[in-house]
Each structure stands twice: as C-alpha cells, then as structure tokens.
C-alpha cells in the first residue's frame, strides 16, 4: 500500500496515465468553454452539444430499437438456416433511414433561401430522389430474397428427390 502507484490506484481508481490524459481532455474542454463563454451564442452551442447526445441516446436509439422490435414481432424470425425475411426488410429500411438522417436538410427542404443564394438552385429534387432510392433499395432486397429463396427451394427439392 506504501508506494504512490498503488495508493493512486486504490484511491483514484486507475493509474497515472489515465489520470493525466483524462484530466488533460477535461481541462482542454474547460479552457475552450471559458473562451466561448463570452460569445453571444455560447448557450446555443452548449445546447447543441448536449442536445446531440440526448438526441442520439434518448431519441434516435430508442426510436430505431423500437422500430426493430416491432418489425421482429411482425416478421416472426425463424431460427435455423432459412433465409431471413427479417433482414431483407431491415437492410433497406436502415439504409433509407440513414440517407434521410444524413441528407435531411435537402430532403426536408430546410434552408431553402441559403441553398438558393449559394447554388442558384432550389431543393426540389431531393425528396423525390430519396423516395426513388428507397424504392430501389427495397426492390433490390426483395429480388435477392426471392433469388435466395428459390435457390434454397431447388436445393432442398434436389435433396428430397435424391432421398426418394
């Protein structure tokens, strides 16, 4: 218990390297926060910083986890080596949601005037394009599902006729 390293471990709960890097990160953030505190919009920045965490952990995550639970309840997942219909729905749905998340400003036409001033163009095409991409993703997934199901049926009927 005598040497400083084990005393630090017992009291603080980790080694000195941990203490140094973690403290440095917090001090850096504190220094930046102090620098920004004078800005008129500092409160908004803080709001967006914390809001981003809340939006992810307490809105986005519960949202997609719940959606997945609902989907799983609807498509009873059959274990074993059957082709998973569930995943052929999950993948295009997730891909489409990802595109919406990333390209929401264009798709939902947020910032119409700044977009026009910068590019000389409006935001009209994006919604239709996103819908088309979504449709394409689902169609593609459905096609591969059908192909895989077909291949599997051939395989199993082949086995059956072998056995017969």
């Amino acid at each position, binding site marked *: 218990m005598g040497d400083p390293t084990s005393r630090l471990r017992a009291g603080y709960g980790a080694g000195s390297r941990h203490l140094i890097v973690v403290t440095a990160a917090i001090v850096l953030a504190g220094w930046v926060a102090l620098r920004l505190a004078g800005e008129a919009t500092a409160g908004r920045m803080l709001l967006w910083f914390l809001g981003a965490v809340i939006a992810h952990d307490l809105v986005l995550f519960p949202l997609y986890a719940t959606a997945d639970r609902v989907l799983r309840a609807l498509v009873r997942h059959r274990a074993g080596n059957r082709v998973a219909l569930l995943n052929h729905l999950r993948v295009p749905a997730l891909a489409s949601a990802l595109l919406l998340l990333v390209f929401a400003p264009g798709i939902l036409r947020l910032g119409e005037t700044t977009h026009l001033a*910068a590019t000389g163009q409006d935001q009209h095409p994006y919604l239709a394009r996103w819908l088309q991409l979504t449709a394409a993703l689902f169609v593609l997934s459905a096609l591969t599902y059908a192909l895989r199901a077909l291949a599997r049926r051939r395989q199993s009927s082949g086995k059956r006729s072998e056995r017969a």
Partner: protein
Amino acid sequence: MATSRPGPDAGGIDAPTSDADGYGTPRRFWRALDRHRPPGVDAADRSWRSPLRGPWLTAVYGTALLVTLPLVIVTGLLDYAAYGPRFDQAFPSDVGWLRLPTFDWPTRPSWLFRVTQGLHVTLGIVLIPVVLGKLWSVIPKLFNWPPARSLAQVLERLTLLLLVGGILFQIATGLLNIQYAYLFGFDFYTAHYFGAWIFTGAFVAHVVVKLPRLITALRSRPLGAELRTPRAATRPEPPDPDDLVAARPGPATVSRRGAVGLVGGGALLLAALTVGQSLDGPLRRTALLLPRGRQPGPGPNGFPVNRTIAAAGVRPEQTGPDWRLILRGGDRTVTLDRPGLLAMAQHTAALPISCVEGWSTRQTWTGVRLRDLAALAGVADPAAARVSSLERAGLFRTAMLAPNQVLDPDSLLALRVNGVDLSPDHGYPARVIVPALPGVHCTKWVAEIDFQGRADG
C-alpha cells in the same frame, strides 16, 4: 443480477481499477452507490438482448474510427491553415495556441486543397454509420449501475460525454453546413473549430485509456474466422469486465459478419452518394442528394456556383462597360478596363476550384497572370496582395494572397473559362483563380488589387 457480474478488473494496465472489487476512495460511498440500485436498472440490464454486443465488435468499429478519424481531424485543421491565419483571415480568428503552427499554404500541387477538404467532408460523411454502429455497440453502458465506482470512472465518463457530444456536434454542424441549412443559429466556424478541439482531446484520452482493451479484444476472436461464421453459429462473447456482453442474450438474428457488413455497407452507400461532388464528368451526378451533384446549366459556364451574383448583391451595371480594375502598388495606381486586360498577355491553366464545403471541379481558366499585374503596379516582389470584390458585404468581400499565391505562374485574374467569357455567377468581368487556394478566396467580381511591397508589408 448485474452486481454478481465481474466488476472492472485488471484488463488493461491503465483501465480504471483499484482493489479487487473495483471501488476507489471513499470506498464506503462508492459501495453504497452501487447497492442503492434505482428501480428499473435491473430490468433495463435484462432488456439488452443482442448477442452481438461485446468487446470484439466494439473493437472492430473502434479500429475503423481509430484509423480514419485522425485524417478527418488533420484535414480539418489544414482547412484552417489554408485560409491564411497569418493574415487574420481564418475563422475563428482568435484561437490562442489552439492551432497548427502557421505556415504559408502552398500552391502546389494544385489539387492539394481539393484532396484535403474533399477527404475531410467525404470521410466525415462516410464515417457516420461507423459512429452509429460504435455507439450502438456500447449503449448499454449508458444505463449501467453504478455509473461509477471511483473518481477515475467519473472523470472517464465526463470525457466520454465530450467524446460523444464532440463527434455528434461536429457531424451535425458539418452536415448542416454543406447543405446550407444553418439551423443552429451560431457561427459555424467558431463552433466547428472549437468543437474539433474538444473532440480531439477526448478522442486522444479515450484511445490512450482503451487501446490495451482494444488490442486484447481484437485478438480474442480471429477476424477471418469471425467473418466466416454464419448466423446460425453466432454465439455471444463470454462475459466481459466492461459489461458490454448482454446478461441475457437472445438468439442471433444477424451474424457478426452481418453486423460488420451492415455498417460497412452503409459507409459504402454514403461514399457512393458523396464522392460525385468531387468528380468531374458524368459521375458527378451520382451525388444524388447533395447540392453539388447538380450542374446549374449546360455549356462552358455550367459548373457549380458558390454564391450567385444576386446573392452577392452585385448589380449588373457595375459589371458593364464602365467596370474598371484598379491596381495599387504603394503610391502608384493603375486603372484598366476589360479590353485593356484582354490586350495583355493571356495565360490558360486547368485548375480546380475547390470549395471549403468539400466539393470541387476542374475547369480551364484564361486571363492575366497575377504576377504580371503586380509588375504593372510596380511591385514585382510583393509581400501580399489584397483583392477586393464589388460585393458590398460578406465575409469574403476581400481576401489576402501570400507572395507564393501571387507569383505562381498559374495564378490568374481570369477573364474567361473554357473558352468563353465568365458568366455573371462565376465572377464576370474578372475573378481570381489560384492553385490550391480555397474557393472562397478566389474572389469574384474583382474591383481592386492592392499589391503590398516588402517595406510597407
């Protein structure tokens, strides 16, 4: 019960750990906190069902971020350097010691900024599914009880808030910026620049603390074997000291290969819909959901515009036959009209125009070399040049050019592009184009260039 599962023990040398039970000082306090489990935490603990969560999957996503995020950080800081902080024209202007050492942004290779900023934005977008996957893999920890067993864990949780808040903040502000939706109502530069430092500090701390765990986790399951394991054979990882593995995992609905593939596929999808904004030719249109996948029109001037003449508030009569270019060099003033400029030696160069928002396009520009104009103004060896636009307002009404940017043989006051006169939106009657210079500093509708000599610099 979760309490019966192993607490943090000697996993990595620097992982939070003290005595065998993991409590720091004051032990009585930390133990009491652990015992006072609020209602619901045990139910929450049991509700995590995915058999995929575990150190290995977290380490795989973590490795992808560990390799790529430094590139995003460095290219972001280079963007700041490219603005020319020496001339006080990088934003935010007062950053104390929080910046790279000052250096003159080079003009060669001419695609330098195209690559650095293109990488910054493209990688930033492509990494979004990886960030989301990583967060998914560790999210149960957010609801763990106790939230900490020692001061070390309290401080580490705080850095995790900075880490997660930092990256989500950078992604959100960056994405809104490139799509011109300034919903946040604060200055993008200030927020994104300082946010980057908060994130970078937390990222370094996180890597230093977790690297030993990451390596053990990666070694725990050989990648090749894992990627060959089908869903039916997918089993949970053994219980881990970090509590990532679910207490009561359900059957696998996806293999680990599937989980890695899902994130990788998302990244590829975003890459496919983003790279187009940095490419010329028919592939440009593949950036289907981004503003810069579209060409504003046909013909030689039909490439993306940044800030239209209408938005800049430049009136057509200002750019008509009465337009004059004023060159200053010390006490000397030279005034030129457009025919006068066209009568000077013309130089043609194929140069990219690369926007700070990540998109770029290479075009063929023709005009007068800036160094010829400097000589005409009597300052053949300038210390700097201040270029001013007809624009009345706006952050980029004027731009300072460093000597290398004035003297490069391809640095032009362009009058024509792709064989025709510049269009009004591209800066008619004359605009600056300098190799590797961010687009916002390639001033359009130029009214005046003030070449500053070495003495008065």
